[in-house]
């Protein structure tokens, strides 16, 4: 559990736009099961995420956190139950899968930038070839998001020339260029040096402030406290506890949660 950290960004969070919709459902996971071969990784997952919600998924390694969010854009296939994203149910239908993926941005632990393309090309590829946006317009959007993640000067470099924190910010900008309605973060800071965690968290917080629907698998408990409106705790492929961050940290219900929190919070 050494990678768990309590990094916080020292500033007031602007909550004016952080509104959770009461009626609009962004993601609906219903009685979902998944197996890897004979191994039952996800067991009866039920999760409804409203538009504008910011959810942090925590839990010990191997508890199925990553697998769960990877199911939401079908990087992993589920075998039972339903996953409905923005009103589209994920099935084997490739067309629907691409439709969902267009609207769902994903940020990976290891950035997964395309090493053979420049930063700008990394950002404009999908808008141009998936959305059909003219090149000049896609580049303008890309520069806008690079400025937002504070590295416009790196536009013409290759990913290999950037630091880890910069690469992860580029990866976030790359997802944002598709103007997604939902963002999934799969341990976005776990592969970063401690010094760089903050710059990535800063970008994620500013996204939350704009009202983005987010699901983050992360060990950044500081982030959970600051911006999440729900923390979900998973163990052995099941959601065993969920609560508002305040309650979750101060008054955990489940024994496993208590153990987990006692190990990571000193």
């Amino acid at each position, binding site marked *: 559990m050494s990678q768990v950290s309590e990094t916080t960004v020292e500033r007031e969070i602007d909550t004016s736009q952080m509104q959770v919709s009461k009626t609009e459902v962004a993601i609906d996971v219903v009685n979902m099961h998944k197996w890897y071969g004979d191994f039952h990784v996800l067991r009866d997952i039920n999760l409804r995420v409203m538009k504008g919600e910011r959810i942090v998924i925590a839990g010990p390694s191997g508890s199925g956190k990553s697998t769960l969010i990877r199911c939401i*854009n079908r*990087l992993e296939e589920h075998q039972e139950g339903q996953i409905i994203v923005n009103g589209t149910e994920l099935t084997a239908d490739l067309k629907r899968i691409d439709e969902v*993926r267009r609207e*769902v*941005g994903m940020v*990976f632990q*290891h950035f997964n930038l*395309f*090493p053979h393309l420049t930063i700008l090309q990394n950002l404009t*590829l999908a808008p141009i070839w998936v959305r059909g946006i003219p090149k000049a317009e896609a580049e303008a959007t890309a520069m806008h998001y690079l400025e937002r993640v504070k590295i416009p000067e790196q536009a013409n470099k290759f990913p290999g020339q950037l630091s880890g924190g910069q690469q992860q910010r580029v990866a976030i900008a790359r997802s944002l260029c598709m103007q997604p309605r939902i963002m999934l973060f799969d341990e976005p800071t776990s592969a970063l040096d401690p010094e760089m965690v903050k710059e990535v968290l800063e970008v994620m917080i500013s996204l939350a402030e704009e009202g983005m629907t987010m699901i983050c698998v992360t060990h950044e408990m500081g982030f959970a406290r600051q911006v999440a409106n729900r923390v979900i705790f998973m163990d052995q492929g099941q959601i065993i506890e969920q609560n508002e961050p305040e309650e979750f940290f101060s008054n955990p219900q489940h024994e496993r949660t208590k153990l987990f929190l006692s190990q990571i919070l000193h």
Partner: protein
Amino acid sequence: MTDIGFVRSELVTARPAPVRTTGAIAWAQKNLFATPLDTVLTILGLLFLAWIIPPLYGFFFGNAVGPNGTVEQCRMENAGACWAYIAAEMEFFIYGFYDIPEQWRPNIVFALGAILLVPLLIPKAPFKRTNAVLFIVVYPILSYFLLAGGVFGLKVIPTEKWGGLLVTLIISVIGITLSFPLGVILALGRQSQLPIIKTVCVGFIELIRAVPLITILFMASIMLPLFMPQGMTVDKFLRAIVGVTLFTSAYMAEVVRGGLQAIPRGQYEAASALGLGYWKRMWFIILPQALKHVIPGIVNNFISLFKDTSLVYIVGMKDLLEAVKTKNDTALEWQSANTATTGYIFAAMVFWVFCFGMSRYSMYMERRLNTGYKR
């Protein structure tokens, strides 16, 4: 505290690296005479060169008969290479039995090929797309009509008459341009999750790879017609090209598959997560990286293909090597002790020039594509 550890109180400014010992003597000391064993090896190497160079020089230059020499000179005792014979046979080596007054047609094809290929290989040259379309689509069609004739009042010249370097180049250029995309498709097919496509690709690759090229050429030219409907024939030349192409594409597929496997899964996932469909994913993300990794293997295959064209003699075609071996009138006229050897040396030099060119170009491309890599 000061006595348990060294702590610098002010930062040290960077200095230039120490000057290396340079100069011829320093170089020789380091590379030739560093240890007694090195010295012995250097002396042995020099002795070997002293032993081998004079006779080679004598054969190739000193005692050789120049391009303007006569057959009598070639037949003299101690005569070296008979370059005059190569000069006399040059036309045959390049065009085979192609009608002599019509040789301007292959010349145009050669020139056009060079004009289209060179800018295609220079990364900075403009109009790449137009250039590629011209080379891959327009050029082959134009070349076919120009070489075969039968249109615009051009005399028909059957493919049986084509020969020499012309045949070698046609088979290898077509073979290379077709086997490469075919190999990529086979490699992708082999990785496909659709069982029928996968089985077909695996079957094709494993079958072709398990059979010698000679067998494929032989089957293509002798056995294929047996299965064809009566009266239907496919040109022997075309069959040889198809045979060579299919053969190389199976090897190419395995090389490309190696490259595909080197691409981390995260690249596929990132591309998928952005909503890129299969073909866009492959075209923009996976293949550019995968192919870059396997340039040496791909060029290896191109070079083998180029040299393997000499096997088409099996089905009675006269490629460069076969043209050199052919005892036509000129060859008989020029018969001497060294004529045949000189012919083979000439063929070897031509093959070497092309293969070495491909090899150097691939190394250049590798360096160029090596964009600030790592992760």
